[in-house]
């Protein structure tokens, strides 16, 4: 113990004398942990929310009866089934806006607690603990998660009004309830959602459902047995989203570890004398390694805790955007307040420790091999550098091979990321090789001795700056790639939206009778130029949720429904019920091409249709199919239209909305005009990429920091390299400028190499990652303005990073320069 203590004391004394190195190590570890832990916090928060949503009504194996068109249906079916001996329990689900809470919608779930499937605990809490009488009695209860209550800024016991002016039962905290959920009695839900006598599904006990008798004939045409729960669905649908986040977090982690690796390596070099002294004073090799590992562990713990704290802050900062995009993209509710399990903290620390060990492994290995006797003769730098470049080159080539393999044979998102990782790492490793070649080619063209020194010395600086330049390359390429993809997506998406959202007004009737009434009423409205009803059926195709839409009036769609690819006469043949069209992502998932045939399961047996067209359906995680309405109605008899698209002069829209709402008590989630819909889609889009953009800028920041740290640490050794020039009569100011020039030269060369890499990355993102993750492919677009802006930013970062060490150099006293001669050995 005593020996370990004094060994550690001697080792640690180094950092006191070199606080900058200490800062580099800590900052690198801190950044790596921070971003990684932040992303993990977001992911685990979301997954916890999905799990809670899934547990809410009985967990993974949930069975229910739902309407074939996915809409609400009459509660009378519940009574009919109960009286036929089916142990069903009704559930009504909808979105509810609270008065004074802006646009935020809560998920309202109405349950009937007496009939909930046995063993189906509520949100993981046993049934008996429900305060049943209070829930069923008057005024009842609105169960809500504590964090949701806090987010709303309300107190337990409050009775807020819904947006339509209905009073809620007193809010009461139910601990494990999923976030964003209001759980009320079904009767209350029907009142709040203005859906008297309506239910959205009937829950069934799993044991019964697995051997359920056939549905009574009268119901079989309308209801269908569905297995699975929303939580599991959400987990599946949002998988790609979280994988993307993880990839960004991992990128930051790797960049951070680069910094750590460099700083620890430098520290080891500077501590060779110290280590040897310790050994000769009787510290065994094992004792020394133990002390070094402990030192690394202590640094990692320190930085890890700091990283976790700031990671928490990053996550808390990004959470609203992430939650909002998950909600609008997938309908997934994620608690807006971070609450993280202890395993997140422990896991984060562990990752930080492992990362530190990984980054320090090389140095530890070198320390273990450090000769005890006289200092090993420093190898001639050219030789060492050549060997280093060769190794980098080989590794880069190997990674290039991996990337090629992943590109040619990749068919999954994971392989897509392998492609990205191999491409980025390979390029980063190849960077010093490329720079060296460039400088070597340039050297013969230098005429003045100073120019020669300028280029030759730049070459010699490569190893020291390589890591920082690699970090810069990675960050820049990532920024170019992600930026191009986002901007390209924005352009494609808004163009597509403009074309697709051609109707001025969209209506969603509550039920069949209302649909009929609305249709009849609208027929008497002269300003309505066209009334386009659509029918809807929810399907599972190879286990993937999909929506089948039946349409009429193909002429309108031919104009406003852009197709990515189509057979000849596609719309005419669709009208003749000779085929179907489907979304790009569904076509990929089912591996269908134009002209191939798809079998749809219907109550009256399979329905086989030819694929006539494929269209983009950006932002929809579920599959989508289009058929002629008459065919749909033949296979699913008794369906009512689920929505109407209305064409009318834009000026008439507000009046019509008002008239509709007065006539039919439609709330504003059922009547949407084009402008509102576009605005909403735009917001979804912005939020989806807000988190990505933020993480991306953070990565660039990390790279700038890496550059700064590298330059600062180099600054000290630079002194001895510049001293001879000073002695030969080059002024200090001039030396400083020359040095700055060198740094900028290397940075600019790196920027230039980052451009093609970034575009390659962008291509990978739109043509590989997007396709695998979301199922849609985007055209690759280049935005020169954006690139210029990014370049300016990167140059500025480089300048700032180079400025301080050079300012120090410019200020260094002749004495300091002189001493660098004395210290030279």
């Amino acid at each position, binding site marked *: 113990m005593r020996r370990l203590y004094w060994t550690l004391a001697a080792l640690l004394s180094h950092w006191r004398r070199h606080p900058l190195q200490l800062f580099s190590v800590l900052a690198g570890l801190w950044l790596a942990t921070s971003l990684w832990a932040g992303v993990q916090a977001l992911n685990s928060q979301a997954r916890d929310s999905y799990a809670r949503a899934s547990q809410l009504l009985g967990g993974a194996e949930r069975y229910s009866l739902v309407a074939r068109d996915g809409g609400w249906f009459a*509660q*009378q079916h*519940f*009574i009919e089934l*109960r*009286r*036929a*001996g089916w*142990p069903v329990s009704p559930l009504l689900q909808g979105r509810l806006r609270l008065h004074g809470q802006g646009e935020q919608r809560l998920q309202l779930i109405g349950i*009937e607690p*007496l*009939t909930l499937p046995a063993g189906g605990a509520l949100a993981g809490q046993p049934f*008996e603990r*429900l*305060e*049943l*009488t*209070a829930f*069923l*009695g*008057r005024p009842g209860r609105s169960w809500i998660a504590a964090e949701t209550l806090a987010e709303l800024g309300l107190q337990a016991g409050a009775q807020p009004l819904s947006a339509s002016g209905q009073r809620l039962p007193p809010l009461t905290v139910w601990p494990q309830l999923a976030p964003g959920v209001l759980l009320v*009695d*079904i*009767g*209350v839900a*029907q009142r709040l959602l203005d859906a*008297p*006598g309506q239910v959205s599904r009937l829950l069934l006990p799993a044991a019964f459902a697995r051997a359920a008798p056939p549905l009574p004939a009268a119901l079989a045409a309308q209801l269908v047995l569905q297995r699975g729960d929303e939580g599991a669905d959400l987990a599946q649908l949002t998988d790609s989203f979280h994988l993307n986040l993880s990839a960004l977090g991992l990128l930051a982690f790797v960049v951070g570890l680069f910094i750590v690796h460099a700083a620890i390596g430098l520290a080891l070099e500077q501590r060779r004398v110290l280590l040897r002294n310790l050994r000769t004073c009787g510290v065994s090799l094992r004792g020394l390694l133990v002390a070094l590992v402990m030192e690394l562990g202590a640094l990692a713990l320190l930085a890890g805790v700091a990283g976790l704290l700031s990671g928490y802050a990053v996550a808390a900062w990004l959470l609203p955007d992430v939650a909002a995009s998950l909600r609008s993209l997938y309908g997934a509710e994620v608690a807006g307040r971070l609450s993280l399990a202890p395993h997140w903290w422990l896991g984060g620390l562990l990752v930080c420790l492992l990362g530190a060990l990984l980054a320090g492994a090389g140095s530890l290995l070198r320390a273990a091999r450090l000769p005890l006797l006289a200092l090993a003769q420093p190898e001639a730098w050219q030789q060492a550098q050549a060997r280093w470049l060769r190794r980098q080159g080989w590794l880069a080539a190997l990674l290039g091979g991996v990337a090629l393999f992943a590109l040619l044979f990749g068919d999954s998102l994971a392989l897509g990321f392998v492609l990205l990782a191999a491409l980025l790492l390979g390029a980063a490793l190849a960077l010093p090789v490329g720079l060296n070649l460039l400088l070597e080619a340039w050297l013969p063209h230098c005429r003045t001795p100073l120019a020669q020194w300028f280029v030759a010395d730049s070459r010699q600086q490569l190893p020291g700056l390589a890591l920082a330049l690699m970090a810069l390359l990675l960050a820049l390429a990532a920024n170019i790639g992600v930026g191009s993809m986002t901007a390209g997506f924005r352009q494609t998406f808004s163009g597509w939206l403009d074309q697709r959202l051609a109707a001025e007004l969209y209506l969603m009737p509550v039920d069949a009778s209302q649909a009929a009434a609305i249709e009849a009423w609208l027929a008497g409205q002269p300003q309505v130029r066209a009334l386009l009803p659509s029918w809807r059926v929810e399907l599972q195709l190879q286990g993937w949720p999909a929506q089948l839409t039946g349409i009429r009036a193909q002429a309108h769609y031919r104009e406003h429904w852009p197709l990515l690819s189509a057979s000849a006469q596609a719309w005419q043949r669709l009208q003749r019920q000779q085929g179907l069209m489907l979304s790009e992502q569904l076509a990929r998932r089912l591996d269908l091409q134009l002209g191939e045939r798809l079998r749809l399961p219907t109550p009256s047996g399979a329905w086989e249709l030819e694929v006539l067209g494929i269209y983009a359906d950006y932002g929809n995680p579920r599959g989508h199919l289009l058929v002629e309405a008459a065919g749909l109605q033949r296979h699913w008899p008794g369906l009512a239209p689920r929505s109407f698209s209305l064409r009318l002069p834009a000026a008439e829209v507000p009046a019509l909305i008002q008239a509709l709402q007065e006539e039919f008590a439609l709330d504003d989630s059922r009547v949407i005009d084009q402008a509102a819909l576009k605005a909403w889609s735009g917001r979804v889009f912005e939020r989806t990429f807000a988190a990505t953009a933020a993480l991306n800028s953070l990565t660039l920041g990390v790279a700038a920091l890496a550059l700064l740290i590298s330059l600062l640490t180099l600054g000290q050794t630079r002194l001895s390299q510049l001293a001879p020039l000073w002695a030969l009569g080059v002024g200090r100011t001039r030396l400083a400028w020359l040095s700055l020039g060198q740094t900028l030269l290397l940075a600019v060369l790196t920027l230039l190499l980052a451009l093609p890499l970034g575009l390659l990355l962008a291509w990978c993102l739109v043509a590989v990652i997007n396709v695998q993750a979301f199922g849609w492919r985007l055209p690759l677009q280049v935005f020169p303005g954006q690139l210029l802006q990014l370049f300016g930013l990167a140059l500025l970062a480089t300048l700032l990073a180079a400025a301080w060490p050079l300012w120090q150099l410019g200020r260094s006293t002749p004495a300091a320069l002189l001493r660098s001669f004395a210290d030279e050995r």
Partner: protein
Amino acid sequence: MRGQHARISLALLAGLLLLAACDAETPAPAAGFAGLGGAAQGFARVEPGRLLGFPADHGAHPDYRIEWWYLTANLQDAQGRPWGVQWTLFRNALQPGSREADWRNQNLWMGHAALTGPDGHRHAETFARGGIGQAGVVAEPLQAWIDDWQLRSRSPANGGLGELELQARGEGFSYRLRLTSERPPVLQGAQGFSQKSGQGQASYYYSQPFFQAEGSLLVDGKRHAVKGQAWLDREWSSQPLAPDQQGWDWFSLHLQSGEKLMLFQVRQADGAHYRAGTWIHADGRAEPLSQADIQMQPVRFSRVAGRRLPTAWTLRIAAKDFAIDTTPLQEQAWMATRFPYWEGPIRFSGSHPGVGYLEMTGY
């Protein structure tokens, strides 16, 4: 006094609340079994002198807190083997006078069904909200149902009780019986006012003990044709038990002589049990029995569901020269429902042999 067990049911329902409610309120003397001794604020009180009228009183009484339709049958199959059937529908109101025909209705319903046979005892339980049609009772023609279980009048004869159809279903069993009767219902206690304690707790209580039953049972896929006798109890109240009453033992007996006998004791914390009963002559005349007339003595205890229960009894009514020893058909006739109790067919020998049902709660 099935009523008592009814309390159970209520208990079920009400008990849940109970658990929560009791915390807040004064730690009263346990408020009777399953809260049935609790206060009945706003609910109608049971007073002597109310005249019962049929068929109207076959239906529900939402002004009162609790109510039940309770049917037991002692049956025999073609091989002469004995079977027992229980069918119960409980109503428990959270608020008095709730009659809404939608989810706002404050009545909760619960059904219990049991089938006891030579090879054991099976039971089932189900719940429903009032007002939406999943469960309810219509007085004329009588129809009481919950899910696909029902008790339904098939003829207007005998005030609607002339011919009934009974059916229920649970895991591994179902039954369907036809019940017929010719005599009018028997009013228990004082013209249907049945006292349950010395402190005034009471219920309205009438029975139809004279049903002839026949029908079929389906047990694990095997059908059995059966015949026998059945007994219907109807009872409603708002606070049937005193707070210190812990549970009860209740008998409904079909004597071979054609007479019927109902006996119960409500066990009190102080050991002074409250006993009452009705001797029903073969012609339907009811003769109330008082505490002093009745002797009830457990003679054998059995281990049931981890509890010690008196499954065999000696019953005496000196004034009637009545002395019998009872034996259960299945000692383990345990109703493992939310609020569990023992209920099963028995036979007895002695001065007046016969068959009947025993219910024991609060053990």
